Every structure is written in structure tokens, then in C-alpha cells.
């Protein structure tokens, strides 16, 4: 019994220590003025993290918008309220689905790749040798990746929403025959730019920080063996998914739950 309590206590201390390491880590790497060379490194990571994730995010967004429209139509048509379809599609996408699903896809596509890449650099002693040459790997390797993640995910989320709303339009208006004017009109009447688009962006920014942080830290902190890399990659996806879904509830409660 006592042994169990002691073990629990030690696990707790380990957790706190890891959290502290992660905090110091992000503090040391994300702060500071980027040099000219830093911009080039950031650009390269923007390509890797952002541009290469664009295809999967846009395709998913299109299908989610289409499904949303189809499901929404079958429900709304029972109440004779199918002209509210645009409003339903836009609000669900902007408030919930776009930030959350884009963040989950981002964790799977870019987050795991970041962990594996940094982990491999650690396993092949590239980080150590950089330090021996006298370059801080936090600045050179970690910082550009962090900032690329922070900027990419909100942009991807915007793309997701736009494509999703268009997908809803395709199914609702072009296929099921909802009147085009009421699709856009109801949407415009009910979507508030700050309240809905803005809050969605805030959500996605929070998710971007959390997912990128988890991915890069897992890569930097892993055990440098092939087994360690595969474990850390899995951990990145699991932890970021849980963090995104949990934080989404908290943020939704604060933004739309009338708690304010």
C-alpha cells in the first residue's frame, strides 16, 4: 500500500518534472529575434509543415462539409426549415469542426513527422554535434519548427472552413435543391465575424501551439533509439488528440457556453 503511494508520488514528480522541462524548452526556443538565416529555416519548415499538409486538410474539409450538408438537410427538411442549412453548415464548421478536425489531421500528418524528424536528428547525434560546433539546436532546429506550426494550423483551419462551406453548398444547393439565396442569406444573417470566425481562429491558434509544442518536445526529449522514436511518434498523436479534444471543450464552454 505504502509502496503504491510512493510509486504514485514518484510518477507525479516525474510528470511535474517533464512539464517543467517542456516549459523551459518552449521558452528557450520560441523567444528571440530570428536572424536572416532564421527566416530561411522558418520558410523551409512552413513548406514542410503547412504546404504539404494542405492537400489532406482540404480534401477532408470538402467531404466533411458535404456530409454535414446531407445530414443536416434530412433533419431540417422534416421541420420545413431546410433554408437554414447554410447557417447550420457554417456554424458547425466555423465553431467546432474546422479547428478540431484540422488540428487532429495536423497532429497526424505534420506533428508525427516533426517528432520523427527531430528524434532521428537526436538519434544520429546531429543535435549533439551541432552543440559541439557551438550552435544552439533549440534555436536552429526547434524554433523554426515551432513557429511554422503556430502559423500553419490557423491558415489550414481557414482553408478547411472555406472548402467545407463550399462542399455544403455543392450538396445542399446544387444537388438537393435548397434555394441558393437562402443558403448564403441565412448564413450571413447568423454568422458573426468576431463571435464565430474569430473564436474559431482563437481555438485553432491554441491548438496550433499545443500540438506543435507536444510534437517538437516529444522529438527532442525521446530516448534516441529506433524504438524510442516510434514510441514518441505514437505519443505525439495520442497526446495531441487528447489535448485538442479536452481543450476544445474548455474553450467552447468559455466562448459559447454563456459562462462569460
Amino acid at each position: 500500500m505504502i509502496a503504491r503511494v510512493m510509486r504514485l508520488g514518484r510518477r507525479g514528480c516525474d510528470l511535474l518534472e517533464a512539464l517543467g522541462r517542456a516549459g523551459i524548452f518552449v521558452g528557450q526556443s520560441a523567444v528571440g529575434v530570428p536572424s536572416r538565416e532564421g527566416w530561411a529555416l522558418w520558410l523551409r519548415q512552413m513548406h514542410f509543415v503547412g504546404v504539404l499538409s494542405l492537400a489532406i486538410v482540404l480534401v477532408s474539409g470538402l467531404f466533411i462539409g458535404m456530409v454535414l450538408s446531407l445530414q443536416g438537410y434530412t433533419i431540417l427538411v422534416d421541420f420545413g426549415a431546410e433554408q437554414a442549412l447554410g447557417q447550420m453548415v457554417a456554424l458547425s464548421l466555423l465553431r467546432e469542426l474546422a479547428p478540431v478536425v484540422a488540428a487532429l489531421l495536423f497532429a497526424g500528418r505534420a506533428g508525427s513527422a516533426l517528432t520523427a524528424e527531430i528524434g532521428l536528428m537526436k538519434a544520429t547525434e546531429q543535435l549533439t554535434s551541432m552543440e559541439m560546433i557551438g550552435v544552439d539546436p533549440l534555436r536552429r532546429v526547434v524554433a523554426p519548427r515551432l513557429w511554422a506550426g503556430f502559423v500553419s494550423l490557423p491558415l489550414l483551419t481557414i482553408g478547411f472552413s472555406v472548402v467545407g462551406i463550399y462542399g455544403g453548398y455543392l450538396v445542399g444547393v446544387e444537388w438537393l435543391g435548397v434555394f441558393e439565396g437562402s443558403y448564403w442569406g441565412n448564413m450571413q444573417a447568423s454568422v458573426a465575424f468576431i463571435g464565430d470566425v474569430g473564436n474559431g481562429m482563437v481555438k485553432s491558434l491554441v491548438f496550433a501551439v499545443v500540438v506543435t509544442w507536444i510534437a517538437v518536445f516529444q522529438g527532442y526529449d525521446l530516448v534516441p533509439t529506433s524504438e524510442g522514436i516510434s514510441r514518441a511518434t505514437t505519443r505525439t498523436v495520442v497526446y495531441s488528440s487528447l489535448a485538442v479534444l479536452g481543450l476544445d471543450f474548455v474553450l467552447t464552454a468559455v466562448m459559447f457556453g454563456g459562462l462569460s
Partner: protein
Amino acid sequence: MSDTPFVVVEGLHFSRGDTEIFRGVDMRIPRGRITAIMGPSGTGKTTLLKLIGGQLSPDAGRVTIDGEEVHRLSRKALFALRRRMGMLFQSGALFSDLSVFENVAFPLRVHTDLPDAMVRDLVLMKLEAVGLRGARELMPAELSGGMARRVALARAIALDPELILYDEPFVGQDPISMGVLVQLIKRLNQALGLTSIVVSHDIKETLTIADYVYVIADGQVMAHGTPESLDVDQDPRVSQFVHGEPDGPVPFHYPAVDYFKDILSAGGGR
């Protein structure tokens, strides 16, 4: 001159978790010579290099390089000291996103403001020294293990260091590239007047180039001397290691219960 040691290690203690890796290691590494540090695998030879390079801090004892105590230095002074050191990693540790040329140019670009033309000349000189000037446009993934290590050597000497640390330079090399590396290390040492520390357990190759040898085992220096004196050392542990005998004071068998009892205890589980 060669009697004032370049690197001094005194009373070094270091442990990782609950296992003690070093229990009081003392070494004096002479200037301008090749010093080999040998020992069975798992004795923490790489850890020793990391302690010398200042990447790890000892629990007790100190490391002095050219009169400067490594672990007392500020971060800035440590980075300045590291400019005077080169390190060759076991895996080469080339930056996988840069070409061979950019890898060798990396330390130059970071630490100097030389114009591009001069960087180019210097890089080509270093690559010529390791015989890979023609491979400058290749990416690290396209190199063989031996070539990668030679590129890494070119990068390690890019800033003309005074001290080079070699971490297992001969591991996993075919006989030809092993011979090439042995020659390179020896030639570089003579041509540039470097102080070299070679960590290795490849006895034959190491003994041919080393001027002085330390053998570490069980967290302590077990023996030290010139290669000739170690060859005739009477200590059974030393002679077992130097002559590569399979069994001796360092047992071949992992500790286990008696062989016969183990065989006969069938049915008693594993």
C-alpha cells in the same frame, strides 16, 4: 612543451541514475600526440568524451583543457572553447538536410564572417584532405558509412581545432576504409600538430597510431602506458584485453547459476 599536458582529468566521478560510470578517473593527455582511450564496450568511453566536451557535468572531479576548467566556464566561454575542439561522432552525425559541401561549410558560416569565395576555398581544402572533393554535391544519405565519417572528419577540422575527439572511428568499417581512416588520423595529427583523443575498442588499429594508451574498466583507469609497454603488461586483465582473449578475468559468461544445476532443473520454470 609536450610535457605540459593539454587535457587533464582529475578525480572524475559520474553516475547515471543509480549506476556509477566513473569512480575517480585521472588522465593527462599530452599536447600534439594521439592518445587512445580503450576499454570493453559499456565502460562509458563515449560518456568520457562528452564530459571532456562539456556536454555532461561530472558529479565530482574536474576536466581542464589548456588551463581552463571546462565545467566552471560560462555558456559563452564554453562555446568559445568548443571552437577550438572538433569532435568526430560514431555515426558521423552529418546534418541530413545539408549537402556535403554545406556540412563542411557549416562551422565556418556560423563562426566566421568570411566571404563566400573564401569559405568555398577552405571547404574544398578540407574535403581534399579527406579525399572527397568530388563528392561535394552529394547529400549525406547518398554516402557510404566510411565516406560519411570522412566528411564528418573534414567538418571537424574545418575551423582548424587544436583538439580532436574521435568517438569510435573504426566501428563498422570495412578493412579498406578502416585503413584509410587510420592513415587520415595519423596524417592529420602530424600535419596540423593536433592533440587527438581516440576512443575505441579496436585494439589493433588503435595501437598502431596511438602514442599513449589509457585502458579503462570498471569506472577506473586500469592501465596506461605506451603501446609497447601495454603489450608486455603482466596484469592478466590488461593482457586479456590487449590480446583479445575470449575468457579471462573479464568473464565470457554473463553471471548465472551453475550450468548443470540449470540444465537439470527442468520443469522448474525458466
